[in-house]
């Protein structure tokens, strides 16, 4: 865990940057003249950031959950069915999806948490996988492998959310809320409790921190976020099938947080943004796209293990070292000019 934020800037300047950044995000669709494709990419980035952030939440307690994909599916199917079978729009569906996801996560997590951290990722994946297969199994009610169609986005007064620009704001707001929630959790006492379990669970338990309770809570919250995102996903694409929620969704979320960085919430945000863009750029290349992902991941683990979020810090220390070396070089040169014997190259 990092007590310092990834980017250290003095308050007045940072406020300006924040306002500017948010302004940019809000103005984005109009800056690019509402072209469909860039907006689609932006919406996808929002979804990916939401998923990656929810996975990072469980990571802050020390375990990797591969259940995001399955719970995204739960949210998506719940919301879709609420519309198709009950005629209730996204405004109801999204909360229903999050609720169903949360309850299911709670139920599943109690036995799940008994497994060790190493096994957990497989066990959590298994949960997601079974969920997916259940979607596929019930053809009549759940659409089977063919999926569900006609998941119409809602209207709000004059605004029709079938318009991608309008949906962009929906995705943006939900992403901001999720990131904000996780950020706040992490920054305050809750975050310290989570990280203490991550760092030294035995010690934390012996200080009165009920590990199981917090793990279940974090898992439930993370899965609810994934479900919420799934609901939005369903009404955006207007079509879902079980394969949309395959394990690669969870796997990609993991890649996002590893490449982005594991210490702060900036990690999943940066990682998901960066890699979604790369993914889109490489889309025409077919399978090479996936290979590139693998290569990027390996390079990241071997050469930038602290992730993209550590780049500002690295630059700062490089500059610092550069300036120091300059001083030393000046001294050495000055000394040799004065006729003193050379003390060797640079510092000791």
């Amino acid at each position, binding site marked *: 865990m990092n007590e310092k934020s990834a980017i250290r800037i003095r308050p007045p300047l940072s406020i300006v940057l924040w306002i500017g950044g948010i302004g940019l995000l809000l103005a984005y669709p109009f800056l690019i003249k509402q072209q469909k494709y860039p907006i689609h990419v932006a919406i996808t980035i929002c979804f990916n950031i939401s998923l990656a952030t929810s996975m990072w939440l469980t990571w802050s307690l020390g375990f990797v959950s591969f259940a995001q994909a399955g719970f995204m599916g739960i949210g998506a199917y719940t919301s879709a069915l609420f519309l198709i079978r009950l005629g209730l729009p996204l405004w109801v569906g999204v909360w229903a999806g999050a609720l169903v996801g949360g309850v299911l996560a709670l139920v599943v997590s109690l036995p799940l948490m008994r497994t060790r951290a190493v096994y957990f990722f497989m066990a959590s994946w298994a949960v997601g996988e079974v969920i997916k297969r259940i979607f596929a199994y019930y053809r009549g009610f759940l659409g089977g492998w063919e999926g569900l169609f006609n998941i119409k986005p809602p209207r709000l007064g004059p605004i029709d959310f079938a318009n991608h620009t309008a949906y962009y704001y929906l995705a943006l707001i939900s992403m901001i809320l999720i990131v904000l929630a996780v950020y706040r959790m992490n920054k305050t006492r809750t975050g310290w409790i989570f990280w203490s379990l991550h760092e030294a669970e035995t010690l934390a338990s012996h200080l009165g921190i009920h590990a199981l309770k917090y793990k279940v809570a974090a898992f439930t919250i993370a899965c609810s976020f994934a479900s919420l995102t799934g609901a939005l996903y369903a009404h955006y694409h207007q079509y879902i099938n079980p394969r949309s929620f395959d394990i690669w969704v969870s796997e990609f979320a993991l890649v996002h947080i590893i490449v982005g960085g594991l210490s702060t919430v900036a990690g999943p945000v940066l990682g998901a943004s960066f890699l979604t863009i790369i993914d889109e750029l490489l889309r025409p290349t077919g399978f090479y796209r996936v290979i590139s*992902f693998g290569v990027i991941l390996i390079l990241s683990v071997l050469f930038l293990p602290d992730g993209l979020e550590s780049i500002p810090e690295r630059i700062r220390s490089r500059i610092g070292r550069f300036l120091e070396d300059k001083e030393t070089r000046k001294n050495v040169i000055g000394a040799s000019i004065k006729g003193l014997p050379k003390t060797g190259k640079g510092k000791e």
Partner: protein
Amino acid sequence: MTLQLIAQMTITAITLGLIYGLIAIGLTLIFGVMRIIQYAHGEIYMLGAYFLYYWFDVLHLPYWAGLLMSAVVIFFFGVGLQLLLFRPLHGKQMLYSLAVSLALIFIISSTGLITFGAVVRGISSFVTGGVKIVGAELTYERMIIAMISLTLILGLWFLLQRTKIGIALRAVAEDPETAALMGINNRRIHYIAMGLGSALAAVAGCLMGTLMFIVPTMGFVATVKAFMIVIMGGLGSVVGALVGGFIIGIIDSFLTTLASSELAYIMGFVTIFAILVFKPSGIFGQDWE
């Protein structure tokens, strides 16, 4: 439920169980000795199968030499992976080995799809004919495959129990620091464990490919099964991997025949879940940090 059906399912269960056991033992060996998560173990299995395919079906070289060569080549491939990718991560969190092996899955399976094409193939049978047991078909091929698997498993047991290298492997798995103090070259043992584990997966791939079919995406299902078995049997336990292999083999064989492969898949998970609820470290697993 005729006797013939039961016999058929049992034969399949035993064969599958043995092959699954091979894959799982390889995985548990890698984890036990090095404490890394080799998520791409199934991809190794796939590579082994395709090697034999090209050796035997394409180049028409002898089957048995191919089986051996597949094991040897993949052994060194595993060593290479250990050298380049996993060793730099030694001592770091398991998350990193998971990440790197995930990257390997991306790279290997995509390369496989590009190189081999998304076509289902099969490694031709090396012998035809068979016998009937209570009406059920038992091909010679199946018998020989089962024998090979059994021999390898017993050979491995012998290696681990009676040979110097085997004891060294177990020592490093148990307590790397003490092992090093006793003069064991941990690094060399890591290479051997990785190579051996990978070779076992490769052979399993060859056998399964001969028995059934090969496709570049076969790696993932194998990985899932291998992890399921290893978790069920207890990470690091060879006996556990074998027992787990049989359990999954039985579930797969019986349920796929009697119900559907979907149900077999789901029941496999449910079983593991159930076992983990009562024994969080697996049937034969131990508590480790």
